[in-house]
């Protein structure tokens, strides 16, 4: 025996355009809680999806209790004693709790019919044993998110797994429930079950984890006992890359404030957010997944309604109830998800490009195609968009070129304030640096740019100032000169060390 319940070694996995995992390892001791740490995109989730059989590794070996195993699909994973509580919960809302727990392995009675009673009893026993107070007869849709989370946890336990993976299990539950969860985890650990615990919350790591493995940019960095680490050491491991791949912003004259946001609130996701951005400035927004950065942009742009707060453009308060108000006020928003909220894939490059500026080209209602064709052709040239013609369906272009068309969509509206959410997500290196150069040039022309980015080098390289968010709040605003990976990460993980605004 090697002394490990799980050994993953030399695991590599590539997706088109990215090496998600590069020769990564994970070794988990039996009866321990093993935390996985790393920035967004470090490869934690991909590695776990390989472990449960959702993805197949390109290279590498997986051993359970020293035995070499293959996990070709998720049922194989469950059969080998590996279960996972997903970050995005996936219950069947119209069915009851017991049915959800035994989904796909229903307990049958006479004549092969599903026995509701037996399933309910089994669920009740499970809940009693772990002190969960939920009625197995309730429909899933009647439960709160926290209760749903508890059901998912009970479900994972009910497989009698050797290894339970928990992906951000505390993101939606209150402190009392976190305590309850930790009690369950400790009890499971005593029984010899190993827990792989993925989290962004440092405090939890030190409360519950025995061992910590840190990943960065798809590579294994270190595995250490939690007792040998503290906050600072952990952050250094997480961000300790050499910054060779910076994208320096070109010099631009910084002018007066163009947009000022004061006390913006929206539900639980945006809490009392205030910031401003000046002409010629690139204002970066950093933070971990779910910190509320995208939500801030959406609220400022009127995609979602603010509960309260002031938006002031060039000194005048504006009312933004919908995106067309925001466009009229001189704003543009390039959204994070190009497919979902960006391109209209079957429409032509030209139609996609002219969409937001259409009113400008049709004062009478009729579109001025001569002018549209001329301006669109200019954009194609200026941004070197690679497309056979303006009539080409945008869905046929590469990601980088689609992104450029979407930038053009906003440039045609001549915005004063351009908000760009993840400007270079999922596009190749060449197009990436072109887009960075373009953003610099726009700043030089006196536009104010707000950029949300989850890539540390991009944030540090491009931003004049960086707004760091944590759990819906601004945890700090850092000047370019003071910005380091460590400072950003400390603010992003909600530590008190940063100079609060």
């Amino acid at each position, binding site marked *: 025996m090697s002394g490990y319940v799980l050994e993953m070694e030399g695991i590599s996995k590539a997706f088109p*355009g990215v090496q998600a995992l590069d020769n990564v390892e994970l070794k988990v001791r039996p009866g321990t809680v093993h935390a996985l740490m790393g920035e967004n995109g470090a490869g934690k989730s991909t590695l776990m999806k390989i472990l449960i059989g959702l993805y197949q590794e390109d290279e590498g070996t997986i051993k359970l209790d020293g035995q070499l195993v293959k996990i070709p699909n998720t049922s194989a994973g469950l059969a080998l004693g590996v279960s996972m509580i997903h970050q995005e919960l996936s219950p069947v809302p119209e069915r009851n709790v017991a049915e959800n727990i035994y989904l796909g392995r229903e307990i049958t009675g006479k004549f092969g019919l599903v026995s509701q009673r037996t399933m309910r009893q089994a669920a009740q026993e499970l809940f009693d044993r772990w002190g969960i107070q939920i009625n197995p007869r309730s429909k899933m849709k009647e439960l709160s998110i926290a209760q749903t989370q508890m059901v998912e946890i009970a479900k994972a336990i009910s497989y009698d797994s050797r290894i339970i993976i928990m992906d951000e299990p505390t993101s939606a539950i209150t402190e009392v429930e976190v305590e309850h969860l930790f009690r369950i985890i400790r009890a499971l650990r005593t029984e010899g079950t190993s827990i792989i615990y993925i989290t962004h919350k440092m405090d939890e790591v030190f409360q519950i984890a025995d061992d910590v493995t840190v990943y960065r940019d798809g590579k294994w960095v270190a595995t250490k006992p939690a007792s040998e680490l503290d906050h600072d050491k952990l952050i250094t491991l997480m961000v300790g890359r050499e910054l060779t791949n910076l994208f320096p912003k070109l010099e631009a004259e910084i002018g007066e404030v163009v947009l000022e946001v004061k006390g913006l609130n929206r539900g639980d996701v945006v809490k009392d957010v205030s910031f401003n951005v000046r002409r010629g400035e690139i204002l970066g927004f950093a933070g971990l997944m779910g910190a509320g950065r995208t939500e801030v942009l959406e609220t400022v*742009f009127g*995609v979602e309604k603010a509960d309260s707060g002031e938006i002031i453009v060039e000194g005048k308060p504006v009312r933004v109830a*919908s*995106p*067309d108000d*925001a*466009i009229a006020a001189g704003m543009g*928003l390039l*959204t994070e998800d190009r497919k*979902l*909220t*960006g*391109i*209209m*894939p*079957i*429409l032509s490059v030209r*139609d996609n490009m*002219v*969409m*937001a500026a*259409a*009113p400008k*080209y*049709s004062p009478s*209602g*009729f*579109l001025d*195609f001569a002018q549209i064709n001329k301006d669109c052709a200019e954009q194609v040239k200026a941004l070197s968009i*690679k*497309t*056979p*013609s303006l009539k*080409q*369906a945008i869905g*046929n*272009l*590469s*990601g*980088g*070129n689609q992104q450029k068309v979407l930038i053009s*969509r906003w440039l045609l509206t001549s915005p004063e304030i351009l908000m760009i959410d993840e400007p270079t997500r999922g596009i*190749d290196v*060449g*197009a990436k640096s072109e887009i960075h150069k373009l953003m610099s040039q726009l700043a030089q022309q006196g536009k104010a740019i707000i950029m949300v980015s989850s890539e540390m080098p991009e944030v540090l390289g491009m931003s004049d100032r960086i707004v760091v968010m944590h759990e819906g709040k601004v945890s700090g605003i850092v000047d370019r000169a003071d910005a380091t990976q460590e400072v950003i990460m400390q603010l992003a993980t909600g530590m008190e060390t940063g100079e609060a605004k």
Partner: protein
Amino acid sequence: MTTPNIATATKAASAFDWRAFVKNYFIIGILLLFVVFLSIATRFKFLQVTNLLNIVTQVSGFGLIALGMVFVLIIKGIDLSVGATVALAAVISVSLGQTATAGNKFFPDFTPPIVVPILAAIVVGLICGAINGTIVTVFRIAPFIATLGAMTYLRGGALIYSDGKPISGMDPALAFIGGGKLFGVLPIPVIILTVAAVGMHILLTKTRFGLHVFAIGGNDQAARVSGINIRKVTFWVFVLIGALAGLAGLILAGRIESGNPQLGYQMEMDVITAAVIGGTSFNGGVGTIWGAVIGSLFIGVLNNGMDLLNISPFMQLVVKGVIIIIAIIIDERKNRA
């Protein structure tokens, strides 16, 4: 840059794309084949000018509505209530357009000028469309359900209004819109259909409204972020098809010279079939006006040809049903490729 994507893009635009050509003009080819076949099978009776004009007149009612259905389908909607709108518009219009001496006068002492019943037909359609549009955009009910309900209550409204009986005594001047011929040759409905088709084509392809319609069908989320008011556009699309259905109601009433509350029964099927045969996609974002006109003619030729060949009406239903399915299979394949 990622070369594979550029390669595919260039290939799609290369000199002549046979596959795209076949996809786009397939339907015209089938229509022409049909025409040739029918011409020979009927010893050229089919090709007589009177017969051809007859076909176009027959399709002008639902063809007019199919123009509107193109807009509705492009925004991923559907309107099942157009046939009932036809009936309601017809009975109300004819009730206002009886001759002064008609026997069973609906409004005994009231014979308004002819412009009133004409406007009434269109306004009734507009209102029906506005109700559908409101239910879809304000109450956020799926168009299928909203217009399924409307199909039933509007038909009921037409039956109540007319007491279940056709309203006769229609002013010949009013009936001329549906049954008359310009210079004794060119049927008025054909002229209306032609003018409406040109107008709708311009609306769909040359105006901001048309661009917004395509944007909503192409990706409604992206359309919203681009500042497009989806609810407003959706509302007007339903108003548009309602108005066209109202006008069609007047034409159909004129052809039979009475306002029959049974008019337009199951007409939504012909309307949707015409649009879909003409290449308008059920998945939204794709559609042309000329396609809907061709699709309407296709149905007209099919009906006429099967009549001329003495195929039983029961069999005709089977043929039409099969053709709907084939058209949709072609549409699905086109969108997948």
